[in-house]
């Protein structure tokens, strides 16, 4: 942007032999917009010659030169002979520069018509869904094979990395997972009490809290938090590495990305999720107990008594058994989506969203399957 104070202008003067356009002021990128529109209204004569007189121009940059060149191009289309002799030297060389580079380029990739595009997207989406599913299954297969190899050669496991991710995934999730479990414990107790009081059965609040938390709530809230916290982080980390060509570099260096990136995350989350679930079991029941004590005047001793009667080891196991499976789904979906990143920053965002949605979806589906399974075996 060259500083030029004079207002840009032009003036068309016709004579017997054709016309002269007198250009004046600063023709720069700042003023190019309005000038462009005014120039479109200019009516050039039908024949003869056109003199472009730039003696009064105070400043010209490539945008201004482009406008002048365009004017000449229009004139030539009108069969006018264009005469640039009255342009100053530097301005002429700029005009020559842009003239030599008059090559229109497409700005965006070609678009199809709305309806056609919609149909195409729909078809593609459906086909992709199937293909993605297959790819995910083959990715899981690859991970299982890699796990098998690692079990045979345990020294290949990136132990430091596993511990690091255990801290990120597990220890650092404790405050938020604990808070969620605590609040849910209170909510279940409060809602349960409200309904059960009508039958004079407030004491069963304990059963309600304990069983729902142990069997479902603790593991679900833990899994959902992990999908949002850690699954998304896995996708973003691995995706950024893909963009940075780090994954390609690993492959060429003979470092297996599954072994170095996926396995430590998978192991860390599979180890930590049962522990986190156990932890939210305790906090959730504690929340319910606290509510019962404060709102229902049920002493802690009475609460624990009732708790002992209400739950069995099975209730606890039902929740905890699911934990490693949900964890594996979250880690696999997170890493899988991360490795699929391509292009740019936008893709990282898209895949991260997908990984979270996918893993929560799969967790709920698995949970339903487990519910059927456990009721079939009377657990």
């Amino acid at each position, binding site marked *: *942007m060259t500083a030029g104070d004079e207002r840009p202008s032009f003036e068309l003067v016709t004579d017997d032999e054709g016309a002269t356009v007198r250009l004046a002021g600063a023709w720069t990128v700042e003023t190019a917009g309005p000038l462009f*529109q005014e120039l479109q209204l200019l009516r050039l004569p039908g024949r003869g010659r056109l003199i472009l007189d730039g003696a009064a121009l105070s400043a010209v940059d490539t945008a201004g030169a482009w406008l002048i060149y365009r004017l000449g191009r229009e004139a030539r289309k009108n069969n006018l002979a264009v005469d640039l002799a009255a342009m100053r030297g530097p301005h002429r060389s*700029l005009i020559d520069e842009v003239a030599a580079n008059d090559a229109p*380029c*497409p*700005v965006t990739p*070609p678009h199809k018509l709305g309806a056609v595009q919609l149909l195409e997207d729909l078809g593609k989406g459906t086909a992709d869904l199937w293909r993605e599913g297959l790819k995910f299954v083959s990715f899981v297969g690859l991970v299982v094979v890699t796990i098998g190899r690692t079990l045979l050669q345990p020294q290949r496991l990136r132990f430091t990395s596993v511990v690091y991710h255990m801290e990120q995934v597990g220890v650092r999730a404790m405050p938020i997972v604990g808070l969620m479990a605590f609040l849910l414990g209170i909510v279940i107790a409060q809602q349960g009490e409200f309904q059960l009081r009508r039958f004079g059965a407030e004491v069963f609040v304990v059963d309600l809290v304990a069983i729902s938390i142990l069997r479902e709530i603790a593991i679900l809230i833990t899994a959902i938090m992990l999908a949002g916290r850690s699954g998304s982080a896995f996708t973003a980390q691995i995706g950024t590495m893909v963009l940075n060509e780090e994954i390609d570099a690993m492959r060429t260096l003979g470092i297996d990305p599954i072994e170095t990136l996926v396995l430590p995350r998978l192991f860390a989350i599979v180890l930590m999720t049962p522990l986190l679930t156990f932890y939210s079991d305790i906090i959730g029941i504690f929340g319910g107990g606290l509510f019962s004590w404060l709102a229902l005047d049920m002493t802690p001793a009475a609460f624990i008594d009732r708790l002992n009667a209400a739950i069995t080891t099975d209730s606890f196991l039902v929740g905890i058994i699911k934990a490693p499976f949900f964890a594996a789904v979250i880690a696999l979906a997170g890493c899988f989506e991360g490795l699929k990143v391509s292009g*740019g920053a936008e893709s990282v965002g898209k895949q991260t969203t997908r990984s979270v949605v996918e893993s929560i979806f799969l967790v709920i589906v698995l949970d339903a399957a487990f519910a059927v399974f456990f009721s079939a075996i009377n657990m």
Partner: protein
Amino acid sequence: MTSDPVIKVRGLKTAFGPQVVHDNLDIDVYQGEIIGVVGGSGTGKSVLLRSIIGLLHPVAGSIEVLGKDIIGMSQHELLELAVRWGVLFQHGALFTSLTVAQNIEAPLREHTKMPQQLMDEIASYKLSMVGLPPDAGAKFPAELSGGMIKRAALARSLALDPDILFLDEPTSGLDPIGAAAFDGLIRRLRDALGLTVFLVTHDLDTLHAVCDRIAVLAEKRVIVIGAMDDMLACEHPWVREYFHGPRSRAAGLHKAAGDGPQG
């Protein structure tokens, strides 16, 4: 060339934690000149460039660009000034979610009022100026080769027809023919627009072909600044090694200075 420098750096000190990159560095760049900045890897050429354009805050010293003090400038003032310079970052720094043409249009859209058609036309000729084929316009940065990214980034840095052009290793990653074309383009633009160019480069051919003056960065400061002849005459060991090494012989510098037979 007028006597008032467009870029005036005095007593610059930059550091990352305990690591001091520059200490008491002075440099002047004058209107309409092309200054080449050289130095070994990690001597702080990119850091100097980033300090001058206000992306890094120095520990001490003063930096004036176009007569305005960069240090202590508000974000808003800096933005206003930034319109008057174009920057080519060492790694391109194209916006990955926009096509190449949209990347070139981004500064136009932000700082000027112009119809889409004119923006598309400007993007087209800039693209051609930097030597990219028209079909590159609709491509996304991820679909470009390394050299094409450099060219696209150069086109974007030229979008607003800046007064000052900051180029960080523009010709690295270009084929020699492309690099020579680039040298020609810079010279022509400078001659026609009165552009001031701050050029960080390792390319001896570029230094030789386009730079009016060369500044050598070593020992945390500018150890020598001047024309190519001054470089060849300089006794500093690194400068000797650089300008008298085997590569400089290939670039024909010795013949230019007339010292000794070619190797």
